[in-house]
C-alpha cells in the first residue's frame, strides 16, 4: 500500500482499475473496493474520474462513497483495529474492553495514533458472537479478547 503518490499517478492507476471492472453489472462498489485496496483510501480526485467513466454525476459518486462506512476519505494508520460494539459482545463486556483499548492507545474511535501506528474503528458484528468479545486487526480475527489477548494485539500494532 503506497499512500504517497502524485496526482497523475493516482489518475493513471484509477483509470486502470475502472477499465478492468467497468464491464461488470453494477461496477461502482467493486471499483471503490479496488481503489481503496490500491491507495488505502478513496482519494477525492478519483471521484470525477469515476463519474466520467461511468457516466454519472460527481454528486452521485460522492453520495455512494460517503454512504458506506467502509470507504475512508484519508489514509488509515499502519494497522486498523476494529472492535465489535454489537449486543453479543456487549453481553461479554465489550464496553469495558473498549474503554481499556482507548486508554491504552490514547485515542477514541475513528482516530489514529499520533505515530500513525493504528486506527481504531467500531464494527457492528464480525459474526464471532459465540466467542465474544471479538476484534479484528488488519483482517486477522480475535475471539474472547481478554487482557492477555489484548497485550498480543498491542505488541503487534506497536511493531
Amino acid at each position, binding site marked *: 500500500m503506497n499512500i504517497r503518490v502524485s496526482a497523475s499517478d493516482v489518475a493513471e492507476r484509477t483509470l486502470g482499475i475502472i477499465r478492468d471492472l467497468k464491464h461488470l453489472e*453494477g461496477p461502482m462498489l467493486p471499483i471503490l473496493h479496488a481503489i481503496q485496496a490500491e491507495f488505502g483510501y478513496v482519494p477525492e480526485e478519483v471521484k470525477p474520474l469515476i463519474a466520467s467513466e*461511468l457516466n454519472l454525476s460527481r454528486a452521485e459518486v460522492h453520495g455512494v462513497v460517503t454512504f458506506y462506512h467502509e470507504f475512508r476519505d484519508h489514509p488509515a494508520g499502519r494497522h486498523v483495529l476494529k472492535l465489535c460494539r454489537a*449486543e453479543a459482545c456487549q453481553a461479554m463486556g465489550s464496553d469495558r474492553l473498549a474503554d481499556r483499548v482507548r486508554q491504552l492507545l490514547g485515542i477514541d474511535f475513528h482516530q489514529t495514533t499520533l505515530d500513525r501506528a493504528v486506527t481504531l474503528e467500531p464494527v*457492528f*458484528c464480525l459474526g464471532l*458472537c459465540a466467542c465474544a468479545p471479538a476484534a479484528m486487526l488488519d483482517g486477522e480475527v480475535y*475471539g474472547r479478547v481478554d487482557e492477555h489477548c489484548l497485550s498480543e494485539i498491542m505488541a503487534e500494532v506497536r511493531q
Partner: protein
Amino acid sequence: MTVTIYVPRDAAALALGAEKVAKAITQEIVARGLDVKVVRNGSRGMFWLEPLVEVETDKGRIAYGPVKAGDVGGLFDNGLLDGADHPLCLGLTEEIEFLRQQTRLTFARCGIIDPLSIEDYRAHHGFAGLEKAIAMASADIVKQVTDSGLRGRGGAGFPTGIKWKTVMDAPAGQKYIVCNADEGDSATFADRMIMEGDPFVLIEGMAIAGIATGATKGYVYIRSEYPHAIATMRQAVEVARAAGVLGQSVLGSQHSFDLGIRSGAGAYVCGEETSLLNSLEGKRGIVRAKPPLPALQGFLGQPTVVNNVISLASVPVIMDQGSEYYKNFGMGRSRGTIPIQIAGNVKHGGLFETAFGLTLGEIVDRIGGGTATGRPVKAVQVGGPLGAYFPRPLFDTPFDYEAFAAKDGLIGHAGITVFDDSADMLKQARFAMEFCAIESCGKCTPCRIGSTRGVETADKIMAGIEPEKNKALLADLCNTMKFGSLCALGGFTPYPVMSAMNHFPEDFAPVPLIEAAE
C-alpha cells in the same frame, strides 16, 4: 495408512487460535516423519470447544478440544493418531451431546467435509438435489419448494416457493438470483458458517433457483466484515466453474447459470432486500418503496429472487429428500429446521440446527447451559438488534414464527444473545436507538429522525429528567417508527426498546437527581 486430522478454518475457530494449532500439528508431522493428511474443515458449531481438532479412526472421528498450540506435542506423545484418551479428548464427535441432539439438514456437511473439495461434496450427497431438479419441469421444482413449507430464513419468513413462482411467471429477457449474505445481526453467524464450511451447498441451491425461475445469473452479496467467507465463496465459484456445475451447461444440462461474488461496504441497512439491490447496482444503499416487488422489478429492473443464504442452502436437501421429508419437521406454519445461533454471555455458544418448536428456555438453559459468567440469565434478545428482549417468564415461548410474533417478538435470523443479571436494559434500549441512528439509510423520517430523538429521550430517562413523561414520549416515538418507517430497520427498532421498557420496568425507574452544587 494415511491418517486424517481435521483442523477448522472457520473464522471463529481462527479467532480462537486454529491457525497456530494447524501450524503446530504440521510441524509435529514433519518432525516425527508421520503419514498424516491435515484437512481444514468448517466448524461443527461448538465454539466453547474451538479449536476442535478431530482424528479419523476406524471407530469414527474422535474430537479433542479446545486445543491450544502448546497442547499439540503432548497430544501426539499420547497417541493422538489412534484417538487415544487425553484430558482434552471428547470422544466420538458425533456422540457429543450438543451435536447428537441436533437435526442437521442444511448443515449436514458443515464441519465434516473439506469445504473446497468438490469430490468430498459429491461423496456426501452433494448435487443430488440439483441433478433431480435438472430432470424436472420448472413449475414442479417451484411446487416442491412451496410444498416443503420453507420460509425466508433471513427473518421475514415469506414463503420461498411463492417468491420463486412470481419470478418464474414474470416474462423477461434476463432474470437474477441474488443471495442476501449481508448477515449483520449480532448473534448470527449461520450464513458465515455455511459459506466457510460448505460453500457448494449455497451454489447448488442458487443453481436450482436459477433453473426453477429461468434466471441465468446470480450474485452473492456478502458483507465486508466477512473476509474469510468472501475468500472461500470466490474459490468455491472457481472450483464449481471448472467442474461444470456453473457455466453454459449446468452439470451437462441445457440450463445455463453463473455466479458472481460481491462485497458490501459496511452498511447494516443493505441486509434489507431493496437496499441490497441498490447497493449491488452501485448506488447508495437506500431502501426502495414497494411495490414494485423485487420479484418483478429487482436487480437492474429485472425480475429477481432475493433469498437469504440459509433459505437457498436448504433447497438442495428439499429437492433431494422431497418436500414431505422436510415438511415433517417443525410445528404450525414453521416447517423444517432452523439453525439457532446461541451467543453472547452463554456457556455453550454455537450453532444448533433443530426442528422448529423448542422452547426458548430449553434453548438457553438446557442447550446453552446458562451464562458463561455463571450468573443468572436476565434477558435474551432474539433476532438481532431489531429483535425483542425476552425475560425469563416468557421462556416457555416455542421457537416458531407465529408464537414469537404473538409475544411481540420475532425470530429474525434465529440468533439469540444471552445477558446475565449485570445487564442494564435501559442502556440496551438506548443502544437499539443509537444503532438505528448510525445505520439508518436516511430515506424515511421516522427512522432517520426518530432514532436520534430516541437516543436523546433515553438519555433523559437515564438522567432522571421527567422520567414518566419521557417514557410516554419514548413509547409514542416507537409507535411512530413502527408504523411509519419504510423498512424493518426503523420499523423493528421499537421491538428491543419497547420489550426492554415493558419487561424490565425497574431499569427505567427514576434515579434521584444529583443536586447541583451551590
